[in-house]
């Protein structure tokens, strides 16, 4: 059973989500304002937070920042605008993933599942191995394997993959990836990423490539499901 905190000012959506999630055996905590939501988060420690960005009392981005100031709970943001910049800002502020309204329950559940699976970021084992599903990365020797089959990667390709693996389950924005893998002077060169991710998918094969999800205009997410 998952305890999900849903913060949205649209009461109809709250009711629908409560019924839909409860039918799947989840417990739903509903909040119509940021204040109520933050109080629920502090008092009842939900496993996952579903947060609408357009709340009446506090800007959604600010809510994400406040959540991150005291909790590592996975946060999935809901957005009713088609504009990418709000979602990117929410992800940069620490949200794990986003869903655009309107969405089907299957989509939301998949996102919740992914977020929960990677609720604790994967840590490398003592021998420097990082595992995400069938993918295994040897951080010391810069070697990657999919289902124990070695994959030849360049140093940059490996660093990109390792960064996404360390943040498995979280949608990493272009800027985050560029900053951390290429350096602080990079941030807008999304076309680099497109080329590298294309090559990575090809090299990882069918099974490995499926791990890499593209969020058009926003970023990439590596997850085991």
């Amino acid at each position, binding site marked *: 059973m998952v305890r999900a905190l849903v913060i949205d*000012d*649209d009461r*109809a*959506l709250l*009711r*629908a*989500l409560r*019924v*839909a999630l*409860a*039918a*799947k055996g989840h417990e739903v905590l509903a909040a*119509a304002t940021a204040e109520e939501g933050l109080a629920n988060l502090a008092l009842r420690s939900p496993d996952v937070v579903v947060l609408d960005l*357009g*709340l*009446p*009392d506090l*800007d959604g981005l600010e809510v994400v920042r406040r959540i991150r100031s005291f909790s590592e709970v996975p946060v999935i943001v*809901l957005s*009713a*605008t*088609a*504009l990418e910049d709000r979602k990117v800002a929410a992800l940069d502020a620490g949200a794990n993933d986003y869903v655009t*309204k*309107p*969405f*089907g*329950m*299957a989509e*939301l559940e998949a996102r919740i599942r992914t977020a929960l699976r990677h609720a604790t970021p994967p840590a490398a084992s003592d021998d420097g191995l990082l595992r995400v599903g069938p993918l295994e990365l040897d951080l010391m020797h810069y070697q990657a394997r999919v289902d124990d089959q070695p994959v030849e990667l360049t140093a940059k390709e490996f660093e990109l993959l390792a960064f996404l693996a360390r943040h498995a389950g979280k949608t990493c924005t272009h800027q985050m990836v560029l900053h951390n893998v290429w350096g602080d002077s990079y941030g807008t060169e999304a076309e680099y990423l497109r080329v590298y991710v294309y090559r990575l998918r090809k090299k990882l094969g069918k099974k490995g490539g499926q791990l890499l999800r593209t969020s058009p205009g926003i970023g990439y997410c590596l997850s085991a499901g």
Partner: protein
Amino acid sequence: MGRPPVYGSALAVATAVALTAGLVPLRAHLSAATIALVLVVPVVAGVSVGGFAAGAVAIVTCFFVYDFVFLPPYYTLYIARNQDWIALGVYGVIVALVARVVSAATAAQAESQERAAQLRRLFYLSELLVRDLPVPELLETIVSSVRSAFDLEGVTLLLPANGRLEVVASAGLPLSPEQAGHLASSSGPVSLEPAPGETGEFQAVALVATGKAVGLLAVRRSRGARGDQELLRAFANHLALALERAGLREEAVRGRLLDEMDALRRALVGAVSHDLRTPLATIKVSASTLLESGVPLSPGDVKELAELVDAQADRLDRLVTNLLDMTRIQAGALELRRQPSAVPDLVDEALAVLGRSGRTGDIRWRAANALPLVDVDPVLVRQVLANLLDNAFRYSPPDSAVTVYARRTAGDKVEVRVADNGPGVPAEDRARIFHMFNRREAGGRGGLGLAIAQAFVEAHGERIWAEDPPGRNARGARFVFTLPICEHDADEEAVGREEN
């Protein structure tokens, strides 16, 4: 340029007569040279007042007076002594030279004064032009100030429009249509024939800025008036630059306006997509849950989800209807179906639209006694109330009530006030809250609902505004709008409604 020569001539003659009268008794005792010296005075006086022409009159007068009255034998033009011939000759040369020098000096002085006056006028006009006046006002200023500065009978300004020159402003006597037509087809300076029966002379000066003609200034002087050609041309250049600058400024303003409209349109599109997607989200979540196989839903769950789909579909339908109505109002295509309506009924209906009833305790309804009927389109006003109430409920703390208060004002209106205890609208946003489609900017408020409410209220010719909370520590937002009172007798209407 000084007074006309006739005054100078008269002065010279008068001086000559006076001096002659004074000198005649003494003439036997004075030398010819002394008298010649004294007789320079009328010439100088004449020249200084009347210029060289008056000087010439003075010279001739004095020359003959000198010979006739003071050179013996007296009262004849005959000169007896040879030395007197010399004196008369020298006198003639000296006065001629004096007259020339004095008249030149006088003319130079007058000219410099004239220059100074011209410069002052030019400066004044230039000063007018650098003020950032709106173009129509600038054009009026140009023609009227050129007319007064150059003392003209008429000034007309023509600017290019649709590929030809058109009269945009004129002061004093206007151009005849033929003249305007003649000018419109011309390029560069031209002279115009006066129209039949007219006096005066026309002149047109091209206004050229940065090598490009920007217009034409047609002036009409009174006949015989001297023109300040150079000054007019110099000023024409200023005018051309001022017009060009004004044109550029208008373009800049237009550009900024377009940018603002573009931003507003984008905000509107954003708000529409947000408000349409919000009910869709609930529909999609509910429908996808109902469709998913293998999910154990209780009959109560199924009913609740189905109800949500139903209610949100209605909400979408209302929103689309409102948007269409707003568009039709703005396009002038919607006619109000006014009918006598009771405000309390409208409030109840609005609550029903929102799926609430007035009995749930989250709304306080107060109305002054004997509230008259209002003459409104009930569909639109119900929607105004629904939007304001929806907004108020959304931003109220859970345990506080929304207040609706209606009263009759002194101006034969009914004023309806919807107040909540939420965060309120910041003072600086109150004037523009109705256009703040971006909820984030408006502190969550705003959005389409208020814009629609404003459009519907204004369609009735009434006003809607956001009010300051009463008192310093009061919280919450207050939206107020007015409605016109029904002109028929309220009792009669009430009876009529019963019968229906």
